[in-house]
């Protein structure tokens, strides 16, 4: 009851990393936008969680963001993340500095140690994450970035999503409620699309492939075809 089962964009902490700076407001913004726009409940004061903490296993979603090399994961962190994925948890990897791509490359390198038999694959616009609430044609964040997300698929489910768009940068706002970062190249329209991506990711976590269901698929496919 209350917040039970509510979407909670917990930020993943590994090694000596700290979650600080302008993007610390992004998780709360994500929750707020979700509750404002949808019927999904969300934790409005999200927390962080360490990869080697037992609390990692308390909820099925974590958000890993950063701009620098994540360093080598400890064996306890690897064990914790493996247990998280074994239960079906979803990890959203968000590169805050896609121009260098250092964070994303290092995250992929370390996740290859956690899930050694997997490789990221691109998710096109046909994937359910792009129609789990809003109809989206491509992912955007603070930057326009690539026209797809990468994902590590396990048992047919995308368990790790890689965004090279700095979604946290698009969501972050200062204490006056103003955006912390400028969104390029399309400004506020792009920020809106970034928020919609965040909502879709949350809905994907909460409903998995609900929108792939047979009863929805034909209607959505027709609507998408009309929009193009």
């Amino acid at each position: 009851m209350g917040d039970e089962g509510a979407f909670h964009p917990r930020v993943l902490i590994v090694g000596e990393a700290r979650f600080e700076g302008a993007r610390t407001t992004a998780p709360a913004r994500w929750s707020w936008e979700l509750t404002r726009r949808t019927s999904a409940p969300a934790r409005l004061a999200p927390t962080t969680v360490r990869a080697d903490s037992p609390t990692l296993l308390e909820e099925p979603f974590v958000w890993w963001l950063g701009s620098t090399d994540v360093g080598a994961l400890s064996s306890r962190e690897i064990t914790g993340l493996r247990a998280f994925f074994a239960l079906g948890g979803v990890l959203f990897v968000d590169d805050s500095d896609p121009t260098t791509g250092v964070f994303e490359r290092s995250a992929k390198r370390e996740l290859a140690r956690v899930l050694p038999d997997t490789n990221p694959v691109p998710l096109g616009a046909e994937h359910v994450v792009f129609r789990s609430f809003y109809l989206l044609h491509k992912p955007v964040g603070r930057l326009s970035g690539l026209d797809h997300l990468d994902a590590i698929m396990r048992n047919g489910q995308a368990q790790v999503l890689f965004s090279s768009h700095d979604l946290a940068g698009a969501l972050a706002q200062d204490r006056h409620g103003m955006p912390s970062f400028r969104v390029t190249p399309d400004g506020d329209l792009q920020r809106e699309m970034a928020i919609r991506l965040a909502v879709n990711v949350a809905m994907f976590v909460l409903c998995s492939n609900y929108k792939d269901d047979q009863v929805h698929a034909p209607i959505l496919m027709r609507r998408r075809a009309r929009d193009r």
Partner: protein
Amino acid sequence: MSIALSTDLPLWAGILAGLLLVGGLAMVSWELALHRRRAIIVASTALAATLLLTLAVLRPLRVQAKYTTVGPRVLVLVDRSLSMALSGDGDQRSRVANHVVGELRRTHSAARWSIHGFGSGAAFSWDESNDTAPDQPSSDLLSAFAALSESSEEKPSAVVIVSDGRLDRPPEGVSEQQIRSALSSWNMPIHTVAVASTDMSDASIRDVRTAGVSVAHQPFRLTVTVACTGRLVCENIPLTVLELVEEGAPVVLASGTVRLERGIGTVELPITLDRAGSRVVRVSIRAPEGDELPANDQRILTFNVTRDRVRILHIAGRPTYDTRAMRQWLKADGSLDVVAFFILRSLSDDVNATPDELALIRFPVDELFSEHLSSFDAVVLQDFDALSYGLTPYLSNLSDYVNKGGGLVMVGGLHGFSAGNYAGTPLETVLPVRLPKEEHGIDTAPFVPRMTVAGRETPVLEAVRALYGDRLPQMSGTNLLDEARDGAVVLWEHPTLTTTRGKPMPVLALGEHGNGRVVALSVDGTHRLAFSEMASQMAGRGYGALWDALLGWLMRDPRYEPARVELLSPCLAGRATPVRIHRVPGLQGEVQARLVALGSQKALPDLVGSKSTDRSFTAELPALDAGGYALRLQIGKGASTRFDFACEQGGDEWADPRPDVTRLQTIAKASAGSFVGAKDVSKLTFPQSTPVATERQESPLLPAWVWSLAAAMALGIHWIARRWSGLS
């Protein structure tokens, strides 16, 4: 009187004595051939001595015996199947059979009679003076013969079968050769006596067949054969197929007309049964006037309906991790066909987009709960507000759906139970718990549910208890529930909250309503069995273990039933029927049985012998009228199970009431026996009586010492004769 040799001698002694006689005579002949002086005297004394010596060894006896004549043993097999209760030649067929047996005894008084009845299995001893109605649900003559073949009793000299010829085995149209082959070990004449030879004026459902198995939601063809016999004239006969349900009027599945040509006609009707398990279906015809046997105008049959896939309607009021866990579990099971609708947006949400930019569709509440509801095996209402999302007008449909056999799961949350506006609605009446009237209806204090005694015993929680024992994850609060309804079983309860009567508040309860089953779960935290530190200890298997079992119980999966019931013989109207009840090991308490007639709430007598604590035991259903029935069993205070079955008057035996004289003639001809009508039974002939010695007396012709003395004297005389004649 006769003469015999002593019986105490072994065979070799007799042979030796014979050889001595022959050898002695040969030696004397050889001597006399060489020495002829006084040969006659020597030869005669030698012959006398040898004979007397042989008789001294053999000691002959005088035998006196008395004889009596014994009549032939005749085996009589009397048909005791239900068709013998129909009218025959001038009287009820079974009474005609009794008369036949009496007449056989009278006209062949010398015969030794062995009277047996036959029906669905081995033949059984029977006496025509026992004037009970025939009660065997089938007439299997070959099984009766097979059982009698293994008997150690004296083989009969002849067999007489008294029947109407309407046998299950050998079947109609059987050839002489087939009969001969089947009864090859019975190499004596088998006579047959027909107790009926004319057809009744009757319209009947001769046969009801289905192609393959009956699968829920899938139409299958029911092939019904209708026939008219005797003087009844039939052309078009209306036919109706109904499903008998526990509450309310029977559900019409199909109707049609059978066109009869030469007294017989067949119609194929597609029917669809929406619920799996044992379902009772009545097929009936409207017979023309003059029908002498109205009982066979209907067949009441039990269909064991299987599932190809279980169709689930999953409705969630908002997406949460609990919704996620439920969906992932439902979608992971390939045997489930899931149709899901989640409320992703309420009217108060500001989506900041045009409808075309949204991947949302309208919640089709009207279509789902008016048109398509019956196509689902179970409905899961998870954290769903009935009022906000327009379900309230359809709650009576949902209640009817459960009454007719649908399964319902209500899972709690901010919008579940009373908080979801279900209190006081038609749906509340089908829930296994009463709902408090409070609008809020939620307690947000964290707690760990407590397993009840029933929860520890039920097979439903066996798998999850195998993983975690009595441990359950902490819940962040609960919807408030009130008392469990009569017959409901509470598996989890709240450790501190109580109902209005002061009992622990139910958290997880199972109940039955009408033909359907309902699960009520007042919490929204079972996802912690799928994803939590506790879940990781068992690789998240706890969630599937819990919900597999809850859905399995909802769908009447035998694995989760506390007991299994089997009818030991078909239920026939007016007769007690034995049932075998097997309970799941480990369940405590007596079996409480309740029998209800489908379609009425009429109180029925209790089962005889049902209150047992044995793991497996036999009870007896009381004599019932023709119809459909549900037997509910509850083990102690644990979960209950239900067994639906049909009870017919006459059943297969009355479906075709025509006597089959031809079959009786074929049987008689195949074994060189005779076929006669009941009036001509005195014309049957049997083998002659045979004499049998009943008394025997033996006495020696002479005492043994006389034979020995005579032999010694004869030898002495012979010795003197030899000396006298000059022989040494």
